[in-house]
């Protein structure tokens, strides 16, 4: 069974149609990259999958583990293993990072019928993960994302992903704003979390992230639709030629013969 099946999805926000018939299937063990120019609908796709309020699906369906994902509240999707690494991670002043992450992990564990972890067990879990992301331990004592640098925020997102071990991770422009070292660390973390029973959907504007996270499939999104899919070599082609040739071709296709 596919992990995620998006069929002819039409969705938008504030009455504006942004995704216009998107179809995509992701199987366990696969890494998919969705690329596209600004405004093509990449972040809308992430928001719809995670269940952000204000986004409305007008047509099509999304099956996750064979059930209709759109029926579920955002927290239920999360508990079922869907993780979104935010393009702009949100600051939560006053809420300690360790406390937040432990609460999140325990929600997942409760949902799976597992016993909750206590503070000491949790520290054991997080210690290895924090090294993987090359983050300083004192970050755990600080409020969630508050006062973090841009790079720290993105790395902290992947730290959360490492703790929560999602079945499907959606990375929304995780590479934006990262210098080359941070990019390598983030990518290394993501690669480390790849397993045969999970999948990753990497949304990005630039090809450079894909030098580090090697996708099995690359899809080009334009005007709310996937206009081209291919293997990892498609990403290089895009890097060399830009998006215009594809978009142009797509536009030409739409012209009546």
């Amino acid at each position, binding site marked *: 069974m596919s992990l995620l099946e998006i069929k002819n999805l039409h969705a938008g926000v*504030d009455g504006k149609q942004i995704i216009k018939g998107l179809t995509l299937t992701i199987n366990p063990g696969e890494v998919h990259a969705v690329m596209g120019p600004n405004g093509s609908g990449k972040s809308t796709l992430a928001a719809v999958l*995670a*269940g*952000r*309020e*204000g986004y409305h699906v007008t047509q099509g369906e999304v099956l996750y583990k064979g059930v209709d994902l759109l029926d579920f*509240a*955002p*927290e239920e999707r*999360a*508990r079922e293993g869907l*993780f*979104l690494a*935010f393009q702009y*991670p*949100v*600051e*939560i*002043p*006053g*809420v*300690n990072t360790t*406390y*937040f*992450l432990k*609460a*999140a992990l325990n*929600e*997942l564990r409760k*949902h799976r019928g597992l016993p909750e972890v206590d503070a000491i067990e949790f520290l054991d879990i997080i210690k290895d993960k924090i090294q993987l992301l090359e983050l300083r331990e004192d970050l755990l004592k600080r*409020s969630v994302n508050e006062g973090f640098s841009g790079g720290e925020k993105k790395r902290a997102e992947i730290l*959360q992903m490492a703790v*929560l071990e999602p079945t499907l991770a959606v990375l929304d422009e995780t590479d934006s704003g990262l210098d080359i070292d941070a990019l390598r660390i983030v990518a290394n973390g993501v690669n480390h979390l790849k397993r045969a029973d999970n999948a990753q959907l990497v949304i990005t504007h630039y090809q450079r992230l894909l030098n580090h996270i090697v996708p099995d499939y690359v899809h080009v999104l334009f005007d709310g639709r996937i206009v081209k899919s291919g293997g990892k070599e498609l990403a290089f082609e895009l890097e060399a030629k830009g998006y215009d040739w594809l978009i142009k071709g797509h536009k030409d296709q739409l012209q009546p013969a």
Partner: protein
Amino acid sequence: MSTATETIESFVKQGYKWGFVTDIESESAPPGLNEEIVRFISHKKQEPEWMLDWRLKAYRHWLTMTEPTWPNVHYPKIDFQASIYYSAPKKKGDGPKSLDEVDPKLLETYEKLGIPLNERARLAGVAVDAVFDSVSVGTTFKDKLAEKGVIFCSFSEAVREHPELVRKYLGSVVPYTDNYYATLNSAVFSDGSFCYIPKGVRCPMELSTYFRINAANTGQFERTLIIAEEGAYVSYLEGCTAPMRDENQLHAAVVELVALDNAEIKYSTVQNWYPGDENGRGGIYNFVTKRGICKGRKSKISWTQVETGSAITWKYPSCILQGDDSVGEFYSVALTNNCQQADTGTKMIHIGKNTRSTIISKGISAGKGQNSYRGLVKVMKGATHARNFTQCDSLLIGDKCGAHTFPYIEVKNPSARVEHEATTSKIGDDQIFYCNQRGLSKQDAVNMIVNGFCKEVFRELPMEFAVEAQKLLGVSLEGSVG
């Protein structure tokens, strides 16, 4: 705003768990207020002449006063003649000599509230004075405290047993002419707690008073007086609840604290009077005067309050820093949900040299709640090197509530240093969504953010009450996000 607003709008449905009524026979004064009633109360309490005189002076002065209109709260005019000024559970015979003789129904009430008074289930390490409507129904651990010379009893008992102390200190911090509600209280106060910690004694346990309004149409006017002699220390906690009723009920209390040289008083309040329903019907009008004087050198008074109840709160626990090097602190969390209104803050009056004060105020507004911080920092001419730090933070949940700040700063000494910091933030939909995406429900997300916002204040509460306060805040916000 679309769905964002909807999210937060449905965050306003909450049941009040303490709203039950105890069915107990009570003895009440007829409604209304006049000299006869004042005499009646004094007579009921078998008070000496001087006490009655003091009450009458207060009553006559009250007649010359008008209700203050400056607070940022709105409510229909109170008919003071409609209220009952004395109500007590009917005594069997001479009244209880010990807790074992207290009406089981009363014990049951406190048990239900989580305040067991009977011997075997008493709160470990906390002595409790339980005040039901107008009278104290019992005080625990009295004997154990007496061993150390600590006096902890109901106010009525103190008037009878320790008149020299009461006469010396009553009205010394809040004179009977102080303000409309304090003056009213001085005339008709019914009971309350009295604590006296002798020289050099560190009170061996937390002292606590639990106030419960039960009878309908009854005002509660209690008075608390705490005296810490030289080098003494006491930590005192006050809790309060009331049944759910459609009418508003008046609560006008006075608390006076006196700290002598090197003494320290830590006063914590968890105020959870019935707040009224979601349409603003019913609830307690909480008009309270709390003031402490750091009379001696190096003395310290610390107020910590968590205010989640009452329809209207009007309350400014204050410190008069008279002794040199004395310290005043005020830590406050005030929550207003639904139609609640709070105008609360503090006054720090620096008189002595090197006096220091800290004010940490956290206001949370949800529903249509209106939350005002009002604080005065006054540095008198002689208060060289006085210092104050004020931090005043407001958190908004939803877009129908309000937060207001009225800081007053008066400095008459050029060596003083006064700092004021203020922030206003809103629990954003993006924060809630972020928590949701990590598997946390909306309610848990809000509780987590609110608790994080309040943690500097919770830190100041005695351990077991900090946990209670967190839970209470959670319950008070239940349903405020849907």
